[in-house]
C-alpha cells in the first residue's frame, strides 16, 4: 500500500496534464448539461441591465486582451447581446491598446442580428494611454478627453453622445477587467458620480471585488466564466459561458480529487517516516 502512495506522491507531471486535458476536453466534445444556479451577484448584475428603459446609455470600460479573453469575452458578448436586444445603448471605452479589436469584432458580429446602428446605439471610443490617470480624466473631463471615435469620426455628430457633457450623464457603468481597473472605476467614477456600477472580472479577482458589492458600491458582479454563464442563462441567450461551464465543472472536480490524493499520499508517507 505504501508503495502505491509513494508512486502517487511522485506522479509524473505529464499524467496530471493528461488528466486535466481530458477533463476539460471531454465535456466540450460531449456536453453534460449540468444545472446552473446563478449567484446573487450575477442576478443583481443582470437585473440592473434588464431593468433599464430602452434608450438608456451604458458606459462600458474594459481592458480585455488575449490573456483575459477566455473569461471576459463571454461576459462582453452576453452584455452586448442583452443590451442590444433591449434597445439599450453602449459607449465602449478601451483602456488597453489590445482591447479595441475585440470591441470592433463584437460590434460587427452582432449588428445583423440586432439591427443596431453604429453612432446611434453603439460607439467605440479610441484607446488612450494612462491607466489610472486615464480613468481620473474620464471622471473629471470625459468630453475633453474624447472628441472622436475609434474610426476617427467626430463624436459631436453622433446621436449616442448627445446630451453627454460629463460621465455622470450616462445611466450605468460597467467595468470589465482582470486587474486594478475596478479599483480605478470605484475611486474616480462610481464614488464621485454615484453611478450604478457593475463589475465583470476574472474569477480570481472576485475576492478583491466582493467587498465593494457587499457595501453596495457595485450593484452586481459578473465573476469569470461562471458569471457569464449565469448572465447568459438569465438573459436566455446561451453562448460561450454556458457551453464552457461543463468543462470548468469537471476540471474543478478533477483538480479537487488530485489535491485530495496528494494530501492522502503525503499524510501516509509522513506517518510512515515517523
Amino acid at each position, binding site marked *: 500500500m505504501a508503495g502505491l502512495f509513494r508512486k502517487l506522491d511522485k506522479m509524473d507531471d505529464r499524467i*496530471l496534464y493528461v488528466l486535466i486535458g481530458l477533463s476539460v476536453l471531454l465535456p466540450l466534445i460531449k456536453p453534460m448539461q449540468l444545472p*446552473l444556479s446563478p449567484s446573487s451577484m450575477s442576478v443583481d448584475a443582470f437585473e440592473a441591465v434588464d431593468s433599464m428603459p430602452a434608450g438608456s446609455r451604458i458606459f462600458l470600460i474594459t481592458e480585455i486582451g488575449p490573456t483575459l479573453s477566455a473569461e471576459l469575452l463571454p461576459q462582453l458578448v452576453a452584455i452586448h447581446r442583452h443590451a442590444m436586444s433591449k434597445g439599450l445603448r453602449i459607449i465602449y471605452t478601451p483602456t488597453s*491598446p489590445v482591447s479595441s479589436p475585440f470591441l470592433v469584432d463584437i460590434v460587427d458580429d452582432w449588428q445583423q442580428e440586432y439591427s443596431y446602428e453604429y453612432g446611434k446605439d453603439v460607439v467605440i471610443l479610441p484607446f488612450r*494611454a*494612462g491607466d489610472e490617470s486615464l480613468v481620473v480624466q474620464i471622471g473629471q473631463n470625459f468630453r475633453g478627453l474624447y472628441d472622436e471615435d475609434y474610426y476617427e469620426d467626430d463624436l459631436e455628430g453622433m446621436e449616442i453622445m448627445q446630451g453627454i457633457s460629463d460621465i455622470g450623464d450616462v445611466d450605468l457603468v460597467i467595468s470589465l477587467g482582470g486587474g486594478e481597473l475596478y479599483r480605478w472605476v470605484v475611486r474616480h467614477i462610481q464614488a464621485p458620480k454615484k453611478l450604478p456600477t457593475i463589475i465583470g472580472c476574472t474569477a480570481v479577482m472576485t475576492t478583491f471585488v466582493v467587498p465593494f458589492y*457587499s457595501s453596495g458600491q457595485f450593484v452586481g458582479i459578473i465573476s469569470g466564466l461562471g458569471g457569464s454563464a449565469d448572465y447568459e442563462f438569465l438573459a436566455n441567450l446561451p453562448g460561450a459561458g454556458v457551453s464552457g*461551464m461543463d468543462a470548468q465543472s469537471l476540471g474543478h472536480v478533477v483538480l*479537487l480529487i488530485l489535491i485530495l490524493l496528494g494530501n492522502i499520499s503525503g499524510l501516509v508517507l509522513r506517518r510512515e517516516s515517523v
Partner: protein
Amino acid sequence: MWKTDIPVMLAFIVGTIIVLSYFLNILALQVAADQLVTWLVIIAGFALGLGVINLLQVHSKKIATKSSKWGLSVWLVLVMLISLGIGVTQGTQSKAYSFMFKNVYTALGATTFALHAFFLPAAAYRAFRVTSLESGVFLLAGALVMLGQVGIGAAMWSKFPLVKSWIMNVPNSSAMRGITITAALGLASTGLRIILGLDRGYLGSSNAE
C-alpha cells in the same frame, strides 16, 4: 539642484494641487488639477514610445554582443518592427494588422494563458498539502468556493452555492476590507512622504536620500 531640488519641488507643487482639488471646491484649483491630469495622460502616451526605444536599445545590445539567446532578441525586434511598420503605414484598422493581431498575437496570448490550466493543477497537487490547522482551513474554504462556483457543485449538493456566497461575502469581505484599508493608509502615507520630499526613490538610486 537640477536633478534633485527641482523634481522634489515639482512633486510638492503638483501633489499639493491634486490633493487639495479633492477637498476644496475652488475653480482655479480644479482647472489646474484637470490640466495636470491631462498632461499625465499625454506623458503616458509618450511612455509607450519610450518603451519601444528602450526595447530596441536593450535587444540591439544583446544582438551586437551575441549574448545568451540573442536569436530571440532578433525575432522580437523583427516582429516589433513588422507590426509597427504595418500599423504606421496601413493603420491599425487595416486587414493586414487585424490578421496579425487575431492570428498571431491573440492566438499566442490565449495559448500561453491557457497553459495555466495545466501548470496550476500540477503545482497544486504537489504544494497544496495540509500541514497545519491554517492550511486545512485554507484548503477547505478553497474547495467549498470551487464547488460553489460551478454547476457540478450545485448538482452534488444544492447548498454549495450558498456556502460559497457566505464565504465570499462574510469572511472574505471582512479580511479584504482590512487589507484594502491598510493598503490605502500605506499608500496615503507614501504619497505624503513623496510630496514632502522625504521619499525620493523616484529620482533614481543615485539621487535618493
